[in-house]
Structure formats: C-alpha cells, structure tokens
C-alpha cells in the first residue's frame, strides 16, 4: 500500500562502548522516514546522521536483510525483533510504527550472550552447543544414493519445520530464564526426524543439553515466550521431543 512519511521519531537506544564498559540509554531524533522503509534502513539513516554530527554510530548486527541469516538481533519496544509476528528485525517495516513515537532499542539480554558493543552481542555460546553434537557424523564421500532410504513425507516436513531455525537467539532473549531450549530442541528434532540423524539422536540430545547448561543458559519453565517470538515459528513441541530424547538417553546410560 502507498507509503507514508513518519515526520518525527525518537529513538531511545542502548549505548555501550565495549564488553567491559557500563552502558546507558541515549535518545536521538530522526525525521522523514518512509513507512515503506525497513527498520534497519531507518537505523542506517540515523547512523549516517550521527556520523555527520560527529557522534559514533550505533553498532548493530545485520547482514542478509532477507530474514534468513539470523544475524540481526534487536530487542525493540520490549520484544525480540519488534512489534510484528514471524519476522526478523531486518524484515520489520516502519509501517508498524506511529508518527511521533519513541522507539526503544536494546540488545539481546542474556548472561550467555555478552554485549560486544551497543546492540551487538556475542552468540558464540550457540556455536559451542552445535559443536557439541548438532551434526550427523558422516564424512564427505562414500554415502549411499540419495533415494536409497525413502523418508515419510510428513517426517521430512516436520524435520524441515525444525530445521528452519536461523539461530538468531530471539528465543533466549524472550525467555525470562534465558533458556536456549527452543534452539537446542530445533536442532535435535531436525536431525532426529530423519533416519540419517536418528542413529545418534540420544547422544546428540545429551551432549547438546549438557553443553547448554554449562554455558549459563537458564532452564525451561514452559512459558512459551520463545515460540511466540520466534521469527520462524519454531514450535515448542520440539522441546517435548528433546525432553523425550534426553530422558531416554539418561535412562539408557
């Protein structure tokens, strides 16, 4: 629909020079933003304005701007990825905001995701969880023909539903306990639903969960905030599946 112009917005944003320094909110004013612009385009314009005013621009993570790489990670007006459903920050558009509004922007807040600068956080903890078992142990080459094992279409689709996770961390940011259960369960389900991944399902669940605990993520208390804020609508039924795999793994020890 036809784009309008937001004449004036106040942007209240978290500024923190590095991991060790103390952060605080600063408020900036920005004018004439098209409702057809994306939220990050608004941030670009604000940053160029700050540069011209001699102020250090706001550091924020972003890359593909198509909602798939999982890099962008802004906590906008109290919600991960802001006031729209099933989108990442880069796909959030300014038509979701009103003229004259004050928009508050914070980084993901979680013990396991320390701030690097301003709105950029360190999500290395996610890497470590996946390295603990989020894979199928096959080498390149020497694998059977792709059609050797037929896979039930519903299983493949369910696997794909879970595999759609982009690893952005919104689930952790949304959770009052900063739990990574939705993230971990998505990987466990993606692989457990396929015969190729089933072989290692138990050890995978066990290793990833223990790594998650070790890295300082909180426990799951089933508030379902993660599912509500997930830009890819990853379902909490994956958490149930993870719990089952984990339990079986522990019992069979």
């Amino acid at each position, binding site marked *: 629909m036809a784009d309008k112009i937001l004449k004036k917005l106040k942007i209240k944003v978290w500024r923190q020079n590095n991991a060790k320094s103390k952060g605080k909110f600063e408020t900036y004013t920005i004018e004439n933003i098209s409702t057809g612009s994306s939220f990050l385009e608004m941030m670009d314009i604000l940053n160029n304005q700050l540069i011209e005013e001699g102020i250090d621009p706001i550091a924020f993570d972003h890359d593909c701007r198509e909602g798939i*790489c999982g890099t962008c990670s802004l906590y906008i007006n109290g919600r991960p990825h802001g006031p729209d459903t099933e989108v990442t920050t880069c796909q959030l558009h300014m038509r979701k905001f009103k003229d004259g509004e004050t928009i508050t922007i914070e980084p993901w807040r979680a013990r396991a995701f320390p701030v690097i600068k301003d709105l950029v956080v*360190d999500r290395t903890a996610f890497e470590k969880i996946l390295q603990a078992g989020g894979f199928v142990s096959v080498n390149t080459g020497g694998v059977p023909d792709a059609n050797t094992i037929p896979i039930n279409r519903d299983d*493949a689709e369910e696997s794909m539903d879970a595999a759609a996770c982009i690893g952005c961390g919104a689930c952790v940011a949304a959770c009052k306990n900063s739990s990574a259960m939705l993230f971990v369960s998505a990987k466990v389900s993606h692989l457990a639903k*396929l015969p*190729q991944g089933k072989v290692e399902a138990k050890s995978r669940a066990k290793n990833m969960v223990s790594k998650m605990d070790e890295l300082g993520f909180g426990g799951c208390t089933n508030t379902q905030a993660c599912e509500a804020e997930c830009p890819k609508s990853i379902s909490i039924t994956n958490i149930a599946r993870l719990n089952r795999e984990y339990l079986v793994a522990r019992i069979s020890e």
Partner: protein
Amino acid sequence: MSILESKIPAGPLAEKWNNHKSAIKVVSPANKRKLEIIVVGTGLGGASAAASLAELGYNVKAFCYQDSPRRAHSIAAQGGINAAKNYQNDNDSVFRLFYDTIKGGDYRAREANVYRLAEVSPNIIDQCVAQGVPFGREYGGLLDNRSFGGVLVSRTFYARGQTGQQLLIGAYQALNRQISKGNVEMFNRHEMLDVVKIDGKARGIIARDMVSGEIKRFGAHAVVVATGGYGNVFFLSTNAMGSNGSAAWQCYKQGALMSNPCFVQIHPTCIPVHGDQQSKLTLMSESLRNDGRVWVPKKKEDAVKLQKGEIRANDIPDEDRDFYLERRYPSYGNLVPRDVASRAAKERCDEGFGVNGEGKAVFLDFKYSIERLGKDVIEARYGNLFQMYEKITDVDPYKEPMMIYPAIHYSMGGTWVDYNLMTTVPGLYSIGEANFSDHGANRLGASALMQGLADGYFILPYTIGDYLADEIMTPKIDVKAPEFDAAERAVSGRIEKLFNIKGSKPVDYFHKKLGQTMWDNVGMARNAEGLKKAITDIKEIRAEFWKDVRIPGELNNLNPELEKAGRVADFLDIGELMARDALDRNESCGGHFREESATEEGEAKRNDEKFTYVSCWEYKGEGEEPTLHKEDLVFENVKLTQRSYK
C-alpha cells in the same frame, strides 16, 4: 601465454576428470597432518571445503566476517540445487546438464570444468541427504524435483524456499563436527585484508579481528579463497550487506588474474526499489516462474493509470494483459534464462509499460495457477516467499500479483583458476562464486549452490593434493618472516590512512554514488560511451573518497564504518575494472549486453570470431592500466549457436 596454463586434461570430455584424478598426486595421511590450509569464507564453498579438507587430515583454519559460519550469504539462496540424477525419468543426463550450463552461459565457460561440475552433481545430493538435509519429498518418500529457467527437464532439488539455508546448515554441521574434533580452528568476526606470498607462493593471510581491531598473521601451506561475489559494487543488490569483493581483490593485487569481471547476473524477479531510503534488494525465487505468469498491460493508458495508482492489476482484464515472455519466447515462456527475462522486463518498462509508481516493475501473477491448482498447493510450494513478499510490500500476493524488477544478483566473473581451481599465484585457490570458472556469461538458476558444493566437497579436496604433495618438506610457515612484516605494515598503513582522512561524508555516500554510476552505465545495457563515462566517474568518486570520507569510532574496537570503508575502497577499483572489461568485450553475451551488438529483434548477438575467450586482467600497480591476457575457449563437444529460447 605462459601464465595461463589451464591444465585441462587431454582425452574425451567424459573421461577428463577421471583421468586427471588418476594422474594427480596424493598426500599420505601422515603428511597431511603436517600441512596447514587456510580457508577464507564459510559459505557453501568454504564450509564444505574446510570440513572435507579437515576430514582428510589437513589442519584447517577457517575465517568468516560474520559471527557464525552459518550466516554466509549462501544461506539466502531460495529455489534449489541442480543435479543430473534423472530421478524424473525425463531423459536428463550429465551431458544434458553440461550442455544446458554451457548454452545458458552463452558459450563463454570452459567445457571441461562445466562437464566436471555436471559429473559430480549427483554426489552432492547424496552427500546432503546423508547429512540430514530435509529436501522436499514425494508421498512415496522419494526426493521431489522442480523446474528452473533455461532447461526443459526437472532436475532441481529443493528444501521449500530455503534450499541455500538447508545446504549451508548441512555444510556448517560438517564444519562444526571438525571444529569439535580440533581439526578446524574457526575464526569468526575476522576479515581477511591481504594474502601473504613467500617466494611467489601463497603462505598465509593478514586478517583483522573485527571485535578487538587487532591485525593478526596466519600462516599456511595453501590459501583457499571462498568469499563469494562482488555484486555489492552496485550498492543495491540481492547480496548481503557485508558481501564484498575485497579478499578476491587482494588476491588480484598479489598477482592472481581477474577474469570476466563484467559478467554479473541481473536477476529478473526481485522486489522493486521503493524509494531513496532502500539499503538492499530482496530476491523472489526464480522457482516462482514455474507457476507465475509475467505480464504488463497491453495498453499504455492502463500502465499510466497503474503508475498513478488509479487502478490496480486486477482491474485489467486478461485480454488486455501482455504476457510478453510467452509472446516472445513461446517454447520456454516464463522459464527463459535470467538474462533474457531481465532484459525483456527492462524493454517493456523502458517503453513505458512499467506498473509501479516509478514505472520500473512488472507483474508476476499467480492467479492462473491458483485457479488451476488451488491456493493450498501454491502455499505449500511458496508459502514462505509469499509471506516475505507481504511483509516487505504490504500486498497479499495470493490476491494481487507480485511486482518484480531485475536486480544485481551474482558474479559469474571472478578470480581466474586452472582446472585444479588454483589461481596464477601458486598455492592460492579460489572456489565457488569467487572464481570465474563454470557459468560463462550467465548462470542458470540453482547452479550456484551446485558449484559451491562441487568445488568444496568433491573437487578441491582432490586437486589441492597435487600441489601440497610437493610441500610436504616445507615446515610450518613462520609468521615472523619479513614478508609477513611487510604485509602487516601495508594493511595497518592503509587502515590508518583511511581512518585519518577525517573528511565530511559517510562511507555510504560514496558507495551509493558508485552504485548509481555502475547501474546506469555498467548495468543491464551497456555501450562504449557509457562505459567510458563510468571509468571517468569512478576515478572522480575515488579521488573524493580518499579525500573526504569520514570514519568515526576507534581503530581498536568493533567499527562497522571502518569495515565498510575498506570494502568500498576496493569496490571503487573493482567497478573500474568491470567497466574496462565491458568496454573490451564489444559483443553481447549472457548477462553482458552491449547495445552495439544486438539483432534486429533486440536480442543479444555474440561475436564468436572475436570474443570466444576468457578475459584475464593482470594488476600492474596502483594507478596503472591493467594488462589484458586472453584464454581462448575451445569447444570440442558443443556447436556454438546463437542462443534461442523461442
């Protein structure tokens, strides 16, 4: 030309790769443990190469500028990956995939490389399935396929509209497994700023830790560059914001030749530019052309009303719609290759038939397939793409047609490599989109993923052994060597120089200016006058950039503006070389359309007599004109014909 030894093996086409594999050297497991390899970039090419090399026993160091390898821009590929499996029994074969790719590339790629690509393509699908890639399946449990532009068979494997994501996650999982075993050391948020040569051989890189700002040295027996394409030279493209040509450009400055830089792909189905605040363009998968029909109004007055917002698409009856692709190309219709579809859209819009406010958009309409197949089927096929379209444009594509327009998407050109994927610098390799080798002047849809994974899983791990077999006596590379000192000094010097300009304009100002010049003069239609103007313009923008760019913040901290400045400085140079290359190639082929070389119907006209070569540019120093070398292309297995999709 002595520096251009393509090393294409002798013998019949179908036997070349097998013969070559038998002839090249192999490194023993004990010696592999002593050798180090650097892989820069972790998209499909880089991640699959790093994982496969580590599995073989090499010590691998991998680098990416993102905070995780999983975020590389391969992730954004939507539609699918080609493979000559012939699962559909539609008479597909390795030869047919090879032929389609050569023809699709408008006869400007190497036969031997393309054949090898087609030959290993089935292995890729096997590998991905074994890793747990959840490809789309039929109810019987077997893999499904879809069709893509420029071909008459159905050979594209897909995972909904997220095929690139799923393939990258597969490669990333394999990479993570090797990281957990200690075989790969991963450096996230590190940007390669130079390649270091010792005695003429690539022996390492200089990289900046993007968090601390520290300039670091890394040594290795071989360096693999898998850093993708340079499409962001146009500022607006479908590439990720961070995608850049800098690593490849440093290789060029260190003596690796740059080939066919003017060959960039303009993708026909992107969401049109919305105004002057746009930061990047979003692709709508080519797979949509399977079920969508492209049209503009037949009557100019309807187009004018659409442009003014007085009527909407659905107000125009079928008989007043011009399905111009079906009209011009009856046999391929909406599935003509990308370059053809892009030019046809431009032609209609230039004639005044564009359908948005700017007159720069055409319709992609699903009304007909929804009537034929039902909304559910269309939703199952393209649901996530439709959702993305609606989020961006606020228009429901189930009810109204999408508006689309061409945008810069992919770089066919890139670093020159021989059959072993080695550049003209010994020990320096280039794979995936970063090299020039497989797509000629136009890439077919769903072939980028195929090439990235073919290079990384099945080609480089073999061919690199041929070089490293002679390096087994070379001890661990000493990063205290004077060559590393000099490289680090040069890198730091350039960063400080940029930082100390302290001018008045942000980096984006220059990037946008460069992008505009490139789009206007080195875009979908090019001519000698425009190309010369581009070269002059770029020289001016460059001079202004180095005088007036303002980089805020600190050197020793996360500083995105500093990162951008380094990349834009290189884009200015890359853009000029692209214009130079386009000027030299006075023929139309694939994505490169010279107005001076067209048929009466306005179709691209190749000039095989004069231009059946790969252009290979050699760096001659700052401010010096580069030297053009030519690798003549020899076609022994296909007959060069004027491409026709009519």
